[in-house]
C-alpha cells in the first residue's frame, strides 16, 4: 500500500491571469524594436516593409505639413457622428427588446436578419440613398455600430436580476424610476463592453467607406498610398488607425472604471 509522509503540497494555483499595463506597453515596444532592429540589420528590405523609424519620420512630416490633420479630422468627425447615431439608436432598440414584448420578437427578427450583412456591401446603396458626401459614410458606420449595440444592450437588460426589479416594484417605484434606478445601471456593464466592440467595428467601417468615393480621410489616404505603392504613407495611415483604436479603448476603460466602481 502506498505510504504518505510529509507536508501536503499546494496544488490549486493557475488560471488567475493578472493585468499589467507595463507588460502590455513593453510588448508593443519590443515588437517595434525587433522590427526596427531587423530592418537596420538589412534583414527586411524597405520595399518589402518600411522600418518603424521611416514610418515615424513620415508621420512627423505629415503632422508638420498639416496633412495629417487634414486627413484625420474628417475621419474623426465621421467616426464621432456615425458611432454616436448608431449607438443611441442601438441602445434605444436594445432597451425596447429587453423591456417590451411588443418589440422583442419583431426587433430580434430584424436584427438577426440584417446583422450578418457585410455593411461594406451596402456602401453603394448608401451612396444612392444618402449621396456621395458625408451621409453615406456616416450611414455605413452608424449602421454597422447599430446591430452589435442592440445585441449587447438587450443582453444587458436581460441580465438584470429579476428579483431586483420585483424589489423595486414592491417599493412602489414607477416604471420610469425602475428603468432609471435598476435597469439602466444593471445593464451598464454589458453596454460598456459592447462599446469596446462597436468602436473597433466603427473604425473598420470608417476606412472601408472612405475607400469608396472620399476625397479626404484616412481611408482615402491609405487607399491612395496603396495604389502608388507608397508604403511609408500606407503604414503611417495604418499606425494612425491603430492609435485611434488604442485611445478609444483607453477612454472606454476610464468610463468603465468611473461607472462600475461598485464591482
Amino acid at each position, binding site marked *: 500500500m502506498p505510504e504518505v509522509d510529509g507536508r501536503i503540497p499546494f496544488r490549486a494555483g493557475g488560471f488567475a491571469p493578472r493585468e499589467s499595463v507595463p507588460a502590455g506597453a513593453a510588448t508593443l515596444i519590443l515588437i517595434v524594436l525587433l522590427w526596427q532592429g531587423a530592418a537596420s540589420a538589412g534583414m527586411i528590405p524597405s520595399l518589402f516593409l518600411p522600418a518603424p523609424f521611416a514610418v515615424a519620420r513620415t508621420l512627423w512630416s505629415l503632422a508638420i505639413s498639416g496633412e495629417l490633420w487634414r486627413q484625420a479630422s474628417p475621419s474623426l468627425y465621421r467616426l464621432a457622428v456615425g458611432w454616436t447615431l448608431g449607438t443611441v439608436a442601438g441602445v434605444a432598440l436594445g432597451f425596447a427588446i429587453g423591456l417590451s414584448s411588443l418589440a422583442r420578437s419583431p426587433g430580434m427578427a430584424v436584427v438577426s436578419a440584417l446583422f450578418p450583412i457585410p455593411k461594406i456591401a451596402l456602401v453603394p446603396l448608401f451612396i444612392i440613398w444618402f449621396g456621395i458626401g458625408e451621409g453615406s459614410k456616416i450611414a455605413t458606420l452608424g449602421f454597422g455600430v447599430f446591430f452589435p449595440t442592440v445585441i449587447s444592450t438587450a443582453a444587458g437588460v436581460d441580465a438584470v436580476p429579476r*428579483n*431586483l426589479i*420585483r*424589489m*423595486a*416594484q*414592491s*417599493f*412602489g*417605484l414607477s416604471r420610469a*424610476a425602475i428603468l432609471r*434606478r*435598476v435597469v439602466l*445601471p*444593471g445593464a*451598464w456593464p454589458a453596454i460598456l463592453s459592447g462599446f469596446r466592440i462597436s468602436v473597433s467595428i466603427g473604425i473598420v467601417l470608417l476606412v472601408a467607406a472612405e475607400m469608396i468615393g472620399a476625397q479626404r480621410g484616412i481611408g482615402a489616404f491609405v487607399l491612395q498610398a496603396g495604389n502608388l505603392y507608397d508604403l511609408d504613407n500606407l503604414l503611417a495611415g495604418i499606425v494612425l488607425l491603430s492609435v485611434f483604436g488604442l485611445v478609444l479603448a483607453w477612454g472606454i476603460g476610464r468610463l468603465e472604471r468611473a461607472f*462600475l*466602481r*461598485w*464591482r
Partner: protein
Amino acid sequence: MKAASSVRLEVCGVRHAYRDLLVLEGIDLVAEPAQVLVLVGPSGCGKSTLLGIIGGLLAPSGGEVRWHGEVSPDCLNPLTYVFQDFALLPWRTVAQNVALGLEGRMPRAAVRARVAEVLATTGLDAFARAWPRQLSGGMKQRVGIARALAVRPACLLMDEPLSALDAQTRGLLLEEFAGLIERVGTTTVYVTHNLTEAVRLGHQIVVLSRRPGRVRTILRLDRPITDRRADDADLLAAEARLWALIRDDAAAAEREIEHA
C-alpha cells in the same frame, strides 16, 4: 418612533395554483395591527407565495386580501418587504440603497436626514458609504431592514429574512429584529421555516400544511416580544409543540420530487 399607522390585514379564502399545481387553498387569516403574524410550514407549502399575495406582488387564483385601518401621512410605501436574498442594488452604497424608496418622494435634505436616522437605528452609521459586496450577509440584511423602515411602512412583510445567514448571525439579528419590530409597531407578517424565530417574534403563529398549503393550526403567544428571551421555558415548549405538528409534513415534503 411609534408608527401612527394602524392597519389590519385580512386574507379571505385565498387559493393559488401555478398552472395545475395547487399550492394554497382556503386560507383565511387576520393580521392584527401592531402584531406579528408568523407563517410557518414545511418547504414548498406556499408560505412565500402567500406573502407575495398579501403584499400585491402576486395575484391569487382565488379569494382576496383586504386591509382596513389608518396609514400615517409620512408613510411612503404601506406594504413593504424584506427579502431572503436581501435584493440590494449592488451599484448603490448602503446609504443610497436605504434611500431607494424615498428618492423623488421627499426633498433631498429630508431624504438625507431620514437615511441618517434609519442607519443609526439599525447600527449602520459606519457603513453608509460601503458597497453591498463589501458587507457580510448579516450587514446586508440590516440594510434590507433599514431600507424597509425608511419608508415608514404600515405593514412589514418579511420573507425568510434570516434564512440566508449562518446560525450565529441569525441569533444576533433575531434579537435586533425583535427590538425593532416592537419599537416601530407596524403590522408584521413574517415567513420562516425556523421555529425558534417563530416563537421569539410571533403573536400569532400560523402553521400551514404540506402542499396544497392550508391553515392547520394557529398558536397564539400574548407575551410582549420585548419580554421574551429565546430560551424561555414557555417558548421552548411552544417550539416543541410546533415541531410535533410539522415534523411529519416536513419529512414528507423533503422526500418529494420537485414538480417541473
